[in-house]
């Protein structure tokens, strides 16, 4: 058993949610690093795959999931829905990971020129909040453009066939479209000077019962992150084996994602709060939330201390 709360001889199963994305967590899964590390403390690992952010929170609410990594918008929605989880670190600040892109040959050069245009976006995604922030910064009201709610696989044909004029989307689509079809990035978090962080989350009850496992989780993640940085070519090769998409695309995506494992900084909290408020104003959230309520940096701090020593 990992700690005093569970009886000896009883093995704990840790449920980790993962997406088929390009990132260290996926690498760690492929390499079996979590299994190795958790076996040492007598815990088993159960990987659960998700196709998008919201189901993570359904699974947490059903006590079926313990860990996961999701984007900035899903955590806000999850918190507003009253799901009991904690953000225990960020996985990146998303300077390039989300963007508003326009197709090759588009005359749109500035955000202002989006006025009256059709923009595809998956509602409730990180790109969604980025889009609204961008519009806001450009002095446009949401009603000045036509928002077309589309999931990526529907948005792609709409974008490529010219049915929409712009697309607020994440990687690998940004890289795919820019590298292979000559699309252009109109704005991203960096150009807008905002944050679109990703988070590592844990089910609160689990964190209370097994705090040491939470630390261990972050430690393994850090290792994976380090490995990816040091063996970039090998990592690209791994992803390529699984995904079969252009290696240069993969490389760009890895570099764009700027993966980290870091505490949730006040900057991040502030950016999250403004996104939450903004979603509330849009009527998409039915209550106002305090995003700092789900932040818990104690675990990541412990990891950093131990690796620091």
């Amino acid at each position, binding site marked *: 058993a990992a700690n005093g709360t569970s009886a000896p001889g009883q093995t704990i199963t840790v449920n980790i949610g993962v997406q088929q994305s390009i990132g260290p967590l996926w690498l760690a899964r492929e390499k079996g690093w979590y299994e190795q590390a958790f076996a040492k403390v007598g815990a088993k690992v159960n990987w659960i795959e998700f196709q998008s952010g*919201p189901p993570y*929170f*359904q699974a947490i*609410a*059903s006590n079926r999931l313990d860990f996961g990594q999701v984007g900035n918008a899903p955590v806000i*929605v*999850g918190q*507003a*829905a*009253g*799901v009991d989880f904690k953000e225990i670190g960020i996985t990146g600040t998303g300077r390039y990971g989300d963007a508003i892109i326009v197709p090759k040959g588009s005359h749109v050069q500035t955000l202002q020129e989006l006025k009256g245009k059709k923009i*595809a976006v*998956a*509602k*409730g995604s990180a790109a969604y909040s980025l889009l609204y922030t961008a519009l806001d910064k450009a002095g446009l009201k949401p009603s000045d453009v036509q*928002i*077309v*709610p*589309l*999931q990526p*696989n*529907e948005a*792609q*044909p*709409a974008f*490529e*066939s010219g*049915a*929409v004029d712009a697309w607020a989307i994440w990687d690998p689509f940004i890289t795919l479209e820019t590298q292979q079809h000559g699309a252009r990035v109109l704005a991203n978090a960096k150009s807008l000077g905002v944050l679109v962080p990703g988070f590592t989350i844990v089910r609160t009850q689990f964190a209370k019962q097994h705090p040491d496992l939470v630390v261990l989780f972050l430690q393994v993640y850090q290792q994976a992150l380090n490995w990816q940085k040091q063996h970039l070519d090998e990592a690209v090769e791994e992803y390529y084996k699984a995904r079969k998409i252009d290696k240069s695309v993969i490389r760009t995506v890895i570099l764009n994602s700027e993966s980290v494992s870091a505490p949730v900084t006040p900057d991040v909290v502030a950016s999250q709060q403004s996104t939450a408020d903004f*979603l509330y104003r849009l009527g*998409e*959230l*039915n209550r106002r939330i305090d995003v700092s309520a789900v932040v818990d940096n104690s675990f990541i701090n412990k990891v950093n201390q131990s690796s620091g020593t």
Partner: protein
Amino acid sequence: MNPSNQDAVYPAVGMSRNAASDRAVTRLSHPRFQRAFAGRGGKLLQGASLPLVVLALWQVASSLGWAPETLLPSPVNIVRALADLVSTGELVHDIEISLLRALFGFLLGGTLGFAFGMAAGLSKHFEGFTDPTIQMVRTIPHLAITPLFILWFGLGEWSKVLLIALGAFFPLYVNTFTGIRNVDAKLFEVARILEFNRLHLVTRLMLPAALPNILLGLRLSLGVSWLGLVVAELMGSSAGVGYLIENASQFSQTSVVFVGLLIFAAVGKLSDSLVRWLERRLLRWRDSYGG
């Protein structure tokens, strides 16, 4: 043989050939139920009893905190969300739009399904050429071909209506086809003797004979059309019940999702009842087992 057992298997002592003996069925069997479930209102009550029980249990479970509100909101909260949506007029608009889409899709797909089913039923050659392809297309998931629909038909109403039509096509196709192939060969011989022309062959023999199956296909097709909205309205809509659900679930507004489900269930049941009513009217000539 145990007579009380027999009573259950043969609820009607007389066959229900007409209204009078239909009444007799109720009168003669299960006298216990007679008072509670007699007549039209009684039938309604009978049908509603199961949902009401479930609803009550659900509310109790919610009140006791057994069901997490995020995933399964209490009936009271769902009603509250319903009232909210109705008061803004949003819901009525959503339903209107969705009904129109489903209707057009159903009309298009259903009509084609019926026509192809007829043609394939009537001609072995038509069947040989088209049926294998149709059966292949039948099990292609809608969710996976929406990109193609967007590519070909854009983001407007057309692609939604066509996607719904695609779904509505198959049940009517298969049922019409089977209905035709169930037509009694003896009656077909009569039609040949009387030299029915194409039109009469269809309208006076095949259609009425296949009607029970066609109406069944109609029921299934209507259901599928209605369900098709969920996927169709993923394609860039900003109104409709499917959109309502999709949007609410992106933002974890579970009680709104349930309002959407409620509407799906209600409209589904209504359209089904409509076809059943039609069935009773159109198949009066039948002499078949009444249950």
